[in-house]
């Protein structure tokens, strides 16, 4: 009996440890795949200019903050960070105000043309941004909006509001009608319904939408490049300068980190609101 159980157990355990081995292998490869590039960027931002990092050495011989000092002293980065962080909150709030009623309608009601509406809302996310940016800039040129802050606000809102809309709509959709009916049956008025049912149930979606909108604006490059520069620089346009026209690896490393840290930090804070369904409603579904 026990011998029988043993022989039955053996292959199962063998397969189990194979699964474990595979999982560990995938984890190791993924760490190399994601962490090594990030680590190298941090190293490049800390290179000591008096003690250069040359090929055979895997790591820089000594570290310093000289590159950071250089970027902060001689580049437009301080102005760019300021512009980015004024622009992104304005865009997020404007997106919320515009998206709220539309998301409510899409999430709660059935009506003719809803599918066309969903496709329209998807378009700013999937249409190549450079075409939109260049020819919106022609439209703005005629309206006196190119090279203006208002132009940037409108353009950024066009490209980032869809995230707010889609995620909020998913959140509204997810509220079971039973809950609303129950609240009504228990005598909840319109205000009580909004305050005690709708708002608490939509709040996580609102946070997720706001985070995505904010980050999209922070990372937006094409439109700012065409409509804003040279009058307005944001962090991505400064990075593009260092990557394209005057490629300086150490400076690009510093600006990359400046651009990346807020996004990663925000997503870390918002992680518990970022359910997979919101992520997939932002990208995957119609």
């Amino acid at each position, binding site marked *: 009996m026990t011998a029988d159980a043993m022989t039955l157990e053996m292959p199962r355990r063998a397969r189990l440890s194979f699964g474990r081995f595979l*999982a560990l292998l995938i984890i190791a490869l993924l760490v190399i795949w994601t962490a*090594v590039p990030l680590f190298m960027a941090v190293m490049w931002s800390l290179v000591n200019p008096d003690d250069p990092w040359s090929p055979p050495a895997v790591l820089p011989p000594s570290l310093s903050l000289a590159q950071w000092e250089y970027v902060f002293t001689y580049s437009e980065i301080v102005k760019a960070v300021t512009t980015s962080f004024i622009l992104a909150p304005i865009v997020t709030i404007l997106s919320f105000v515009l*998206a709220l009623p539309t998301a409510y309608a899409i999430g709660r009601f059935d009506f003719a043309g809803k599918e066309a*509406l969903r496709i329209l809302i*998807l378009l700013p996310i999937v249409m190549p941004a450079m*075409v939109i940016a260049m020819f919106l800039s022609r439209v703005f040129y005629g309206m006196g909006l190119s090279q203006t802050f208002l132009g940037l606000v409108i353009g950024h809102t066009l490209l980032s509001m869809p995230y707010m809309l889609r995620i909020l709509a998913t959140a509204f959709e997810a509220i079971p009608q039973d809950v609303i009916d129950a609240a009504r049956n228990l005598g909840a008025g319109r205000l009580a319904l909004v305050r005690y049912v709708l708002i608490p149930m939509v709040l996580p979606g609102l946070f997720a939408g706001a985070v995505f909108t904010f980050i999209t604006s922070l990372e937006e490059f094409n439109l700012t490049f065409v409509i804003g520069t040279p009058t307005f620089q944001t962090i991505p346009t400064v990075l593009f300068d260092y990557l394209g026209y005057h490629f300086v690896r150490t400076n690009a490393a510093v600006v990359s980190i400046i651009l990346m840290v807020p996004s990663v930090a925000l997503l870390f804070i918002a992680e518990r609101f970022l359910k997979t369904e919101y992520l997939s409603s932002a990208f995957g579904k119609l």
Partner: protein
Amino acid sequence: MNAAQPGRMMLMLLVLPGAGFIFLFLSAAIAMTFLQSIGLYALVGDSRLTADYWLSLLDKGFLDSFLFSLKVGVGSAFGTLLFAYPLALFLRRKRFGSRTIGSIIKIPLFVPALVAAFLILNVLAFNGILNSALIGLGLIDRPLRMLNDTFGWNVLMIQVWKNLPFQLLIIASVLESIQTDIEDAARNLGASPWRVILHIVLPLSAPGILIAVVLVFILTFGDYAITRVAGPVYPSSLSVLMYTDAFTLQQWGIAACIGMVIIVASLGFVAIYARAARVIEGMGR
């Protein structure tokens, strides 16, 4: 859905702020592209109806750029799938390490495109860590020249790195919606795990694969920043060609034609995407 369905007027008012804003500016941009491509509304020089700009696309430069963009789009979409699908299958069942894998793999999703380009360029640089590692392992004698190659390998590498989490999320959510009954039945009837994947899971997840592939294709086909930074000097991608025509050569009419080509291609693929999405929604019910 709701017991209290509002009237038409009320619905219109609700839909207008968000959808109206998008419709207004998006259609203005697309209309401007179209009008300038046929010579109207030119902001510099004369405006006259002409097909000259369209005819000027019939040269080798445009064709090369078109083929290059197509290659980058298709290559990125399927190159990413090559990693994303097996990973999604592996992560499908809760098992040892699946949470860790799931969270590590999401990291590039939160890395801006330009930063991703920089990160991968660093790794691929002539004296970068990949070359050092390959030499260290004794696989090559001299560093390989991988940057700004004419094929665009580094652009593909960057796009795969950046888009892997996208595809994984999409495919994982579709795999989740496949009911396990069918698989269990097949297993009970003696099908091997490979047969189950090949004959049941793969066909049922086909619409999801289509969505994942089309999405990455659209996002990479019209890309400007990454190909500008990491791509070859010639051929350039369509978006880079369009930008150069407009801002360097002041040929906005030709740029508008290229813009129209990009817009029409994207809209065509959005239509495919929408169809596939509808099929998936039908499956979920």
